[in-house]
């Protein structure tokens, strides 16, 4: 088979019918453009929504759950070993929320190759005093530098600077909703009371806005040192350790391992946020379905045009076959025509898809829920362009396959006799 000659013939047939070719190519271009723009946009949104939760969720959280002791005395007793024991009114034992031997845990995490980083944390219930009323809230003692590095804390501090809770002693960042309730401006001092009844003044250095209003109405952040001081605890008192891994998929297995090793509770991100992955998956599925539908429609366009072309070119096919072109040669001529349309249309589609993505990226999109986002998010991942290119060739190949096979089966005797 002489590929150069066949390509040459295919090209001449294409150019001779350049208007039809153009229409078919525009069909492919349009569908690839929409495919790229749609997937880029959908996945941009996915990333954004996932980031909303996943970015600031630790891959593994180490903590002590308040719960009844697993080892109740009656079960330990030899006398009742063989019986099934019902225990009523079990209460949580007075175990501490503190992680035991936290400095040893941190040292182990430091050495673990799989760990990207960790941030210790103290969480405690407090009351904020606004005049005569007390507002319940939660104060988080955080290692702000690690929080910024690992969990994008900075993105959610809308006024003031996150790092200020380290620089200014006795300072606090209030959730936006909480600050509104307290009527607290930047630089103001708010009073808070701990569960034990200690009272503390703290200076407001920033507002925090997560995008989840209920959360913002109760949360506040201070440095680990400040919270330890408020609670009257020593410097190794920590209630949570948030671990970020290099490979998120290892989280469930490692959570089990840590739980056993450190004798505490460990929750992995997959368990904590299963619904978000489902949402992303469904959105991706829908955008692929729409994109591929568009391509198939374009494929039918090519199919029609090639079919018409074959009826028009019956004479040419007959003489090509009479002068020594085999059925296979003729089939390839039409396949190359189809794939040429797919290739040119596909390339143009990738370019236009990229341009359309750029335009979407410029459209303003402001919502109070997402303080860091100003325009619609777009994902420019190369993989969508690759899929688009491959699919444009595959669909046009199949669209060309049936007409090409028909052309290869044309019997020259019938055509020549008919003249």
């Amino acid at each position, binding site marked *: 088979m002489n590929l150069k000659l066949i390509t040459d013939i295919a090209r*001449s047939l294409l150019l001779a019918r350049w208007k039809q070719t153009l229409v078919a190519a525009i069909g492919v271009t349009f569908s690839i453009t929409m495919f790229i723009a749609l997937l880029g946009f959908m996945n941009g949104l996915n990333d954004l929504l996932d980031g909303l939760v996943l970015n600031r969720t630790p891959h593994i959280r180490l903590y002590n759950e308040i719960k009844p002791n697993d080892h109740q005395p009656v079960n330990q007793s030899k006398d009742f070993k063989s019986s099934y024991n019902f225990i009523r009114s079990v209460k949580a034992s007075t175990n501490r929320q503190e992680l035991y031997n936290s400095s040893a845990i941190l040292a182990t995490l430091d050495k673990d190759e799989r760990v990207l980083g960790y941030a210790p944390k103290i969480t405690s219930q407090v009351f904020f005093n606004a005049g005569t009323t007390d507002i319940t809230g939660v104060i988080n003692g955080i290692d702000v530098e690690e929080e910024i590095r690992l969990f994008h804390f900075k993105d959610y501090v809308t006024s003031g600077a996150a790092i200020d809770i380290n620089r200014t002693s006795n300072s606090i960042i209030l959730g936006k909703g909480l600050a509104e309730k307290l009527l607290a401006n930047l630089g103001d001092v708010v009073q808070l009371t701990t569960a034990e009844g200690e009272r503390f003044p703290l200076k407001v250095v920033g507002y925090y806005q997560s995008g989840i209003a209920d959360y913002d109405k109760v949360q506040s952040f201070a440095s680990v040192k400040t919270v330890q001081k408020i609670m009257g605890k020593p410097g190794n008192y920590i209630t949570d350790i948030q671990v970020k891994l290099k490979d998120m998929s290892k989280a469930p297995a490692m959570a089990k391992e840590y739980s056993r090793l450190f004798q505490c509770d460990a929750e992995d991100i997959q368990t904590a946020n299963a619904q978000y992955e489902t949402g992303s998956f469904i959105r991706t599925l829908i955008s692929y379905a729409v994109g591929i539908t568009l391509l198939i429609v374009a494929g039918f366009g090519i199919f029609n045009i090639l079919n018409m072309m074959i009826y028009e070119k019956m*004479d040419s096919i007959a*003489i*090509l076959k009479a002068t*020594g072109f085999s*059925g296979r040669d003729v089939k390839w001529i039409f396949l190359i025509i189809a794939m040429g349309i797919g290739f040119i249309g596909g390339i143009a589609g990738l370019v236009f898809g990229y341009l359309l993505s750029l335009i979407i990226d410029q459209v303003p999109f402001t919502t109070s829920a997402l303080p860091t986002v100003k325009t619609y998010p777009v994902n420019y991942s190369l993989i969508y362009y690759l899929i688009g290119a491959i699919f444009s060739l595959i669909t046009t190949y199949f669209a060309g396959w049936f007409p090409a096979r028909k052309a290869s089966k044309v019997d020259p005797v019938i055509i020549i*006799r008919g003249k």
Partner: protein
Amino acid sequence: MANCILEAKSISKYFYDPVKFKVLTDISFRVNKGDFVSVTGKSGCGKSTLLYILSTLDTDYEGDLLIDDETMRGKKEAQLARTRNEKIGFVFQFHYLLNEFTVLKNVMLPGLKLNRLSALEVEHKAIEKLKMLGIEHLATKKANLISGGEKQRVAIARAMINDPHIIMGDEPTGNLDMKNAEIVFDIFKKLAEEFNQTLLIVTHDLDFAKRTHRIIELEDGKLK
């Protein structure tokens, strides 16, 4: 005995639509190198059908066909295409030029398909053939922009490009006026006499047939 180019061995052919009907019965003859043969007969006697069988385009027949002492029975479609490309040149009643291409390219196509010579050599050869037929000035024109007589001459040049063993014609002058038919006949005669080219021409034109070297006459699907 001169070397045999084409031999038909008791070829029979049936048509099945609308009823079974025997078109050709037991046709046997040989064509030797340098023969200028015409096949004549009344309309509907099966002469075109015979030509399609002899040219390997039609494979649904009984009997045997030898081209160059090689049987064509049981050959695959691609092998037959190769044989046509290499050994047979065609001139039909209708010219069948590809309108997308220039005259030169039309002539070159079978040569490029054969792929024995480089594109440049094929082009050179095509120009030579066009010169021989006195139409080299048309080489760069689009095939649909030349006259009917010229088209038929281009078709003859195309048939000759691979120096085939035999050129087959199916009423090659049927669509032409007297003057052009004369030109085409003279070309055939010149090919046969000066270049020792073997020719097998199907025609219903008895004047044409009488001027060839040998006449094969068909009547109701049988040799007369």
